[in-house]
Structures are given as structure tokens and as C-alpha cells.
């Protein structure tokens, strides 16, 4: 394991534990950063000590000691409070590793409904994912200053308003879990189809999967948590086949299935089976089930997909779900009923609505209308790879040059 992977694996867990020990997010971040700086000298140098057997525990202990040193030098109110908190803790064994529950507490703090959605996402990526502000800003097409300001403001609100650092109890979970799942889902989605630039931002996908796995390990009895992880895994599994040799978009029907990641698919299918046994369906589990059908066998069983979309529409009656369901309707009943199903959908600014309409019109031979729908979709799409894909489809409809 090299330094970068230790940082990736341990940063969020260590920050979470230090937040509990110090009672302050800012102090915890500084302490963990100090500890990693020390680690870099001690572990990485040619005549250094090398990696300790438990790097996470080493970082937590070092960060704790660094924090005590730092607090002794400072005399602010926060410093005194944090020092008091540290002193009131029973003597802990010299090397305590990151505590898993701390991570869970921190996820719920970061995704507290009293914080704005952008702040929730930015804070989760920064504190639990260890991503730097410029990386988060790039991913969300927001100026760095905006992200930095949102994170500072969110941390201030957590402290000033006393947003608690704890896992909500069972009665609160129905309200508190959905924002956490949404944040992880949005992080993955932004990675899977970036708002701009290259089609896929692998780093965000992997981060979302990593956080999803952590959440599932911490809450193995929550079916929607398992459903979300399964959805992420089954989508992630197809990523290698989704982009062609020159970076172009490859649709599901045209993907080379041999390039799908079999291990992730196996893991995702197992999770979907676990969800089915629990029989408490929800939107993420149903989407995972749909993706399980897509990744099962040599071709998609569209009847099954349509049945699952019917169920999903009951749980989440949104226009986006209705649009995706129409794609399955087209496969099972043909393009005409699918076109009728999306006729009244209201999704302003969403390029996939005119793109789907264009595809259905093409199949019905209504070329002039299809061209207009492609134009509409191209005007709305922001991702360059998707735009190229739509241009390519559109060009295929126009009469070719005489040969």
C-alpha cells in the first residue's frame, strides 16, 4: 500500500474519529492533516520507518497528540472546550484505530437536512472522501471560492447551531436516511455522466462506491442502503463498456458485454437477492433490480424490466422514472405507445426527454420530427460526449451523400 491509498482509505475514517474526540470538525481536519504530514516524513523516506501495521490507528493517535499540543498553545474558547473534552475522556489505550460508528455519525452530520444540498455533498466529499476543494469544484462546475465558502459556512452552522454528531435513532431514520442516500447517488451520477468535459469521472464513481460500501457495512439491515449499493455496483460494472475507443458513448444495446466487470455484477446480484428476501422494496432497490435484469444473461429481459418500472413508478412517481419506463415500453410494446406515454411529461431543460422522443420518432419513420427533437436535445445537453453522440445519431437520419 502506498501513501496515496492509505490517505484515501483512512482520511475520512480518521477525521470522523477525531471529530468525536475533539468535538469540532475544523480542529479534527487540522489534526489529521498534521498527522499525515508527519506520516509522510516517517513512512515514505528511504531511511524512514516504513508503513506501520495499522496506519489508521497510527494516524488517529498522532492526530490526537498533535491536537493536544496545538490546543495547549492556543487559548480560544473552542480550544478550551476541545481540551476539556479530551481531558474528560477515560484513558484510552495508546493506539486506538478509527471507530466505524464515527464515520456513520459524520455522514449523518454532513447530510443533515438543515444544510443545503450542495453543502451536504461538498462536505461529504471533503470530510469523508478526503477530496480537495478544487476537485469538488471541478466536479460540480462551481467556482472553487463557492465550494470553499459553502464548506466553511456549513461547518460554522454545524458548530453554531449544534447540529449533533450522532446516528439518528430508528424513529428518525425514515426522514434522515434519504438525504444521505441522495448525496451518495448524486456523487455517483456526477461521476457517471459529468456535467461537462469527459463523459465519465472515474474518481467520483469510485468514491461513491467506496462510501456506499462503508454505509452498507455500517447499516446492513437497511434495505434501501443495500439497494443503493447494488445500484451503484451494477452501474459501475458496465462503465468499461460504456465508452468506446475514441471516448464516444456506447449505448447499453451496443455494449460489449464481455467488458463488464463480472465481480461487481456478482456482488450486485447478491445484494439484490438479499433485498428481495427482505421484501421491503423501495426506489433504490427497484432501480438495482432493473439493473440486475440488464446485467443478467446475454440480453435484457424487457418484460421483466417493464414490470419493475411499473412498480418503481408507484414508489417514485416522477417524470424521470416515467421517461425511463417509456424506454422499456418501446421494447415491449413498440415505439408508438412509448411515444404516447411521454407526450405529456414536463421536464424542462432535461435533454434526455427530447433525445428519447427523437429515438422513438426515428423508429416510427417520422424523420422530420425526429430531426427537430434531436436539435432540441443537442441544445440542452451539456456533456460534450453526449452532444457528439446526439449529433452522430442525427446525422444518420439525413440523406447521405450520393454515391
Amino acid at each position, binding site marked *: 500500500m502506498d501513501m496515496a491509498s492509505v490517505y484515501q482509505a483512512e482520511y475520512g475514517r480518521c477525521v470522523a474519529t477525531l471529530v468525536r474526540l475533539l468535538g469540532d470538525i475544523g480542529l479534527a481536519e487540522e489534526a489529521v492533516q498534521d498527522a499525515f504530514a508527519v506520516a509522510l516524513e516517517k513512512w515514505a523516506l528511504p531511511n524512514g520507518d516504513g508503513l506501520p501495521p495499522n496506519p489508521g490507528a497510527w494516524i488517529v493517535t498522532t492526530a490526537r497528540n498533535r491536537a493536544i499540543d496545538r490546543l495547549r498553545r492556543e487559548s480560544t474558547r473552542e480550544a478550551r472546550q476541545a481540551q476539556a473534552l479530551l481531558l474528560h475522556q477515560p484513558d484510552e489505550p495508546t493506539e486506538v484505530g478509527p471507530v466505524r460508528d464515527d464515520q456513520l455519525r459524520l455522514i449523518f452530520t454532513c447530510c*443533515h437536512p*438543515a444544510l443545503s444540498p450542495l453543502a451536504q455533498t461538498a462536505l461529504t466529499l471533503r470530510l469523508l472522501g478526503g477530496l480537495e476543494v478544487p476537485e469538488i469544484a471541478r466536479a460540480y462546475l462551481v467556482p472553487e471560492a463557492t465550494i470553499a465558502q459553502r464548506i466553511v459556512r456549513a461547518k460554522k452552522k454545524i458548530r*453554531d*447551531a*449544534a*447540529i*449533533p454528531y450522532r446516528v*439518528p435513532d430508528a424513529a*428518525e431514520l425514515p426522514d434522515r436516511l434519504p438525504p444521505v442516500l441522495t448525496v451518495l447517488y448524486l456523487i455517483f451520477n456526477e461521476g457517471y455522466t459529468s456535467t461537462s468535459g469527459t463523459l465519465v469521472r472515474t474518481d467520483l464513481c469510485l468514491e461513491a462506491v467506496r462510501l456506499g460500501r462503508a454505509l452498507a457495512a455500517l447499516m446492513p439491515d437497511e434495505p434501501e442502503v443495500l439497494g443503493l449499493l447494488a445500484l451503484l455496483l451494477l452501474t459501475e460494472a458496465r462503465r468499461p463498456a460504456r465508452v468506446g475507443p475514441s471516448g464516444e458513448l456506447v449505448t447499453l444495446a451496443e455494449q460489449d458485454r464481455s467488458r463488464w466487470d463480472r465481480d461487481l455484477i456478482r456482488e450486485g446480484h447478491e445484494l439484490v437477492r438479499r433485498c428481495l428476501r427482505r421484501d421491503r422494496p423501495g426506489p433504490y432497490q427497484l432501480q438495482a433490480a432493473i439493473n440486475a435484469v440488464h446485467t443478467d444473461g446475454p440480453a435484457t429481459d424487457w418484460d421483466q424490466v417493464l414490470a419493475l418500472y411499473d412498480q418503481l413508478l408507484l414508489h417514485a412517481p416522477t417524470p424521470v422514472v416515467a421517461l425511463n419506463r417509456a424506454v422499456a415500453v418501446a421494447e415491449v410494446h413498440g415505439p408508438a405507445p412509448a411515444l404516447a406515454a411521454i407526450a405529456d411529461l414536463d421536464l424542462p431543460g432535461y435533454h434526455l426527454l427530447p433525445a428519447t422522443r427523437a429515438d422513438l420518432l426515428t423508429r416510427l419513420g417520422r424523420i422530420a420530427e425526429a430531426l427537430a427533437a434531436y436539435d432540441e436535445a443537442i441544445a440542452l445537453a451539456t456533456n460534450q460526449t453526449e452532444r457528439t453522440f446526439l449529433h452522430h445519431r442525427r446525422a444518420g437520419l439525413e440523406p447521405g451523400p450520393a454515391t
Partner: protein
Amino acid sequence: MQYLLAVHTVEGDPMPSTEDMQTQFARVDVVNAELQFAGAWVFGGGLRPPDSATVVRVEGGRTTVTDGPFAETKEQLGGFWVIRCDDLDQALVWAEKCAEACLQPVEVRPFDDEPQA
């Protein structure tokens, strides 16, 4: 921690009927009793309409008194609670009860510092 639970009313909103007002008062009384029973009660009350307000300013040693209210907006403070509890989650639970009782949105704001008891 102490929190202000502020009830904002919008000028021009239709006044509830006397009957509705009575049941609203009754519901607020129940919440007040719950707050007191839980040890969360510090203070609270409803305010007369904003046109009853007076603003006092002291500038350069001179005091001026003008007809209020201070904020020239349609949204005005209609009443408030000051409560004491451990964290924002507890404050939000109380705010939900208060909003249900008075049928108005409730803004939750932490006090800057715990006053010395």
C-alpha cells in the same frame, strides 16, 4: 444550548376566524405545557401586530422615537419561544410541534452563547 423559535406572519394573509384562533391558542397552550414539563421552556409569547411597534434610536447622544416597525417587509415577527435543549435535532422537534400548533412556519436560530445562569 438555547434557541429562538421565531414565528413569522405575512402581512395581508387572511386572519383566521375567532373559532380557529381559539383552537390555535389551545394547541399552543398544550405545546407550552409540554415545553415546561420537559424543562425546555425559557420564555415565549405572541406579539401584537407590527403596526403597534415603536423604534427607538440613539445616535450621537440624541434619541429619536419613530413609529415602527423597524423592518419594512411584509414578513414580521408574530411571536416566539426561547427554548433550552441539547442540540439542533431536539430544537427541530420542538419547532415542528410549534409550527403545527400555530399553523405558521417557525425559524430556529441558536443563541450566540449560553447565558450564565
